[in-house]
């Protein structure tokens, strides 16, 4: 499939179209859930931290847990169920209605025309969505922590800035979401292309996409975290 990736970039419009369907259409769910996750983190974090009299550390808690873990992982899980399933269903249905065979008849390689753009669309969208999720979550934590509960605004931001490292935390988060994007898109296009060309087969493949990619994300997250933050 990677051999056909050249087409995805030569005919960039095919990939752009997929970024639109996977990325832009996932914006609402990612932004809204990011906001709520951040707000919940703000509430729960404050509740626990204020027992130790260190509610100023709320900024660190919200920012680190979002940037390192929750941002990439939750965004990836949402992305798998929102966009991954759609990709599988689309390709599976193309196969069931013999559009893929028709393409082959016209000497159009479906791997290059259909599969590669969807894969790259997912890979490109995912880090952007994860960054948006984290930013939105931090904003949500700020809303609840500072505006609602009244943690000091200065210490919220300054403690966050003092303990979040750009390369160590943010770049690792971006790398994670990149890997997750590749996993989801890979599983989704494979399951779609591999699906039984029947209604049952497509529905089964869609389910498998969500289950497999969610499990793969969580497992990959553990492995990546073990490598990235070990002993740091």
């Amino acid at each position, binding site marked *: 499939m990677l051999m056909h990736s050249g087409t995805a970039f030569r005919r960039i*419009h095919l990939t*752009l*179209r997929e*970024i*639109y369907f996977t*990325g*832009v259409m996932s*914006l609402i769910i990612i932004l809204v859930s990011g906001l709520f996750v951040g707000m919940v983190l703000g509430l729960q974090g404050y509740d626990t931290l204020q027992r130790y009299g*260190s509610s100023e550390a709320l900024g660190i808690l919200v*920012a680190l847990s979002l*940037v390192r873990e929750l941002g990439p992982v939750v965004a990836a899980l949402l992305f798998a169920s929102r966009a991954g399933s759609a990709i599988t269903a689309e390709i599976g249905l193309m196969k069931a209605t013999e559009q893929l065979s028709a393409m082959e008849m016209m000497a159009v390689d479906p791997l290059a025309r259909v599969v590669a753009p969807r894969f790259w669309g997912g890979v490109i*969208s995912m*880090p*952007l*969505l994860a*960054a*948006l999720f*984290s*930013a*939105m979550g*931090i904003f949500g934590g700020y809303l609840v922590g500072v505006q609602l509960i009244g943690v000091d605004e200065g210490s919220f*931001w300054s403690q*966050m*800035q*003092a*303990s*979040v*490292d*750009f390369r160590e*935390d*943010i770049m690792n988060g*971006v790398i994670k979401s990149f890997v997750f994007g590749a996993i989801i898109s890979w599983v989704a296009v494979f399951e779609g292309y591999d699906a039984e060309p029947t209604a049952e087969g497509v529905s089964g493949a869609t389910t498998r996409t969500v289950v497999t990619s969610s499990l793969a994300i969580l497992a990959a997250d553990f492995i990546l975290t073990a490598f990235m933050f070990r002993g740091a």
Partner: protein
Amino acid sequence: MSRTSLDLWVGFFVAIGLVALLFLAMKVGNLSSSMSGETYAIKASFDNIGALKVRSAVKSAGVVVGRVSDIRFNSQSYQADVTMSMDARFKFPRDTFATINTSGLLGEQYIGFEVGGDEEYLAAGDSVKKTQSAVVLEKLISQFMFKQAADSESGK
């Protein structure tokens, strides 16, 4: 959907994604102020650095004036050699006193500079002669306990 508006949406999506990343980098990760200007390196040896880490702050009068860039164990002196990269805008006298402090009771540790009165300034590569180690809480508590025990012994 027409091709133009689709392109516009994708461009918009990529743009706000990058803005979010920039927000994380600047506002959260504080990339903007992490030693953007010129720095010079000075060294100091401590008997015990506690939980000091690379990138910990160096503060004077509470203001961040540099960061710890390297920590090594010196096998000759059995001390920790700490290298700090200081903001080139600030100069410190040669008899500056470096201590390892803790922000808050359980907070992060940082190096505090207490400025001396020497006429000459520390230059790149110089080392701070007078240092004070980190206070280890366990030691402090055990000293206190022993003192209490000794007092009650002698009081009998």
